[in-house]
């Protein structure tokens, strides 16, 4: 159990350092599954996740991103059509039905949009990739509260998934998370 928990927590380390950190702990007599391993990994993960907050640019980027993402979570559901029937009366075709279907679950659309924004936010520097997950987790709760019924579970999950997708897109464009960036 402890071994699995340790492995799960180690996933929160920047990918670039994961192997070296786990090897260092092994060398220091704290291999996976031994007493002290989990605490040591948690301590290192916490430091890595706190580090971006020391940087002014990353702090501002996080603030802008979280405000915009929270705005999306609020605005998109508010923009829902009050009566889809009137639209279908005018345009009763598969495309209109599909659009209405998607738009009738605006909380999910909002969660996906917010997640993609967080994952792909250009205001968060590449080295501060851990911030994206902190913001996504922070907004997952409001996304859950705002969504009605069964969507309360689906909305935060979609938000996290969209963050992952957005971040992957960023990594494939050359902004890999956790890679060192030369600062002027």
């Amino acid at each position, binding site marked *: 159990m402890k071994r699995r928990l340790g492995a799960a927590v180690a996933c929160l380390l920047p990918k670039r*350092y994961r192997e*070296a950190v786990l*090897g*260092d702990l092994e060398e220091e007599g704290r291999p996976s599954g031994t007493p002290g391993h989990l605490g040591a990994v948690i301590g290192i993960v916490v430091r890595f996740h706190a*580090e971006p907050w020391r940087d002014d640019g990353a702090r501002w980027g996080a603030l802008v991103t979280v405000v915009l993402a929270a705005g999306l979570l609020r605005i998109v559901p508010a923009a829902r059509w009050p009566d889809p029937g009137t639209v279908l009366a005018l345009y009763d075709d598969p495309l209109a039905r599909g659009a209405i279907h998607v738009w009738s679950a605006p909380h999910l659309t909002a969660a996906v949009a917010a997640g993609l924004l967080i994952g792909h936010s250009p205001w968060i520097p590449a080295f501060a990739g851990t911030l994206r997950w902190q913001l996504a987790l922070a907004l997952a709760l409001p996304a859950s509260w705002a969504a009605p019924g069964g969507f309360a579970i689906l909305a935060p999950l979609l938000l996290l998934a969209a963050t992952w997708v957005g971040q992957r897109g960023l990594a494939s464009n050359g902004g890999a998370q956790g890679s060192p960036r030369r600062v002027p």
Partner: protein
Amino acid sequence: MGGQGLGSLEQLVLLAVLRLGSDAYAVSVRDEIRRRTSRSISRGAVYVTLDRLERKGYLSSELGRPTAERGGKAKRMYGLDPRGRSALQQSLSELKRMAHGLDDTLEIGGRPA
């Protein structure tokens, strides 16, 4: 880089990397600092400081060869870059100039005030 000063832990880490030469990695850096200063620094603090110094262009790193004693995992080895050397020189010379003439006041070397 003159406008971007070094913190005290950053100074210690750069000095440790300089001392350790080709054997500088997180564990040896932490041990070296502990051995020479008796300061106990958390593992996480050493990792994020090494990462920050690398981002600033003061250090460079590469993965070494995996070894059995590390469970087949590689070390991330660090080396001091010219910019790091120059930042360290500047930082230490500033410190020396500020401390100049204060040895007696600060009782450096165990001398009475």
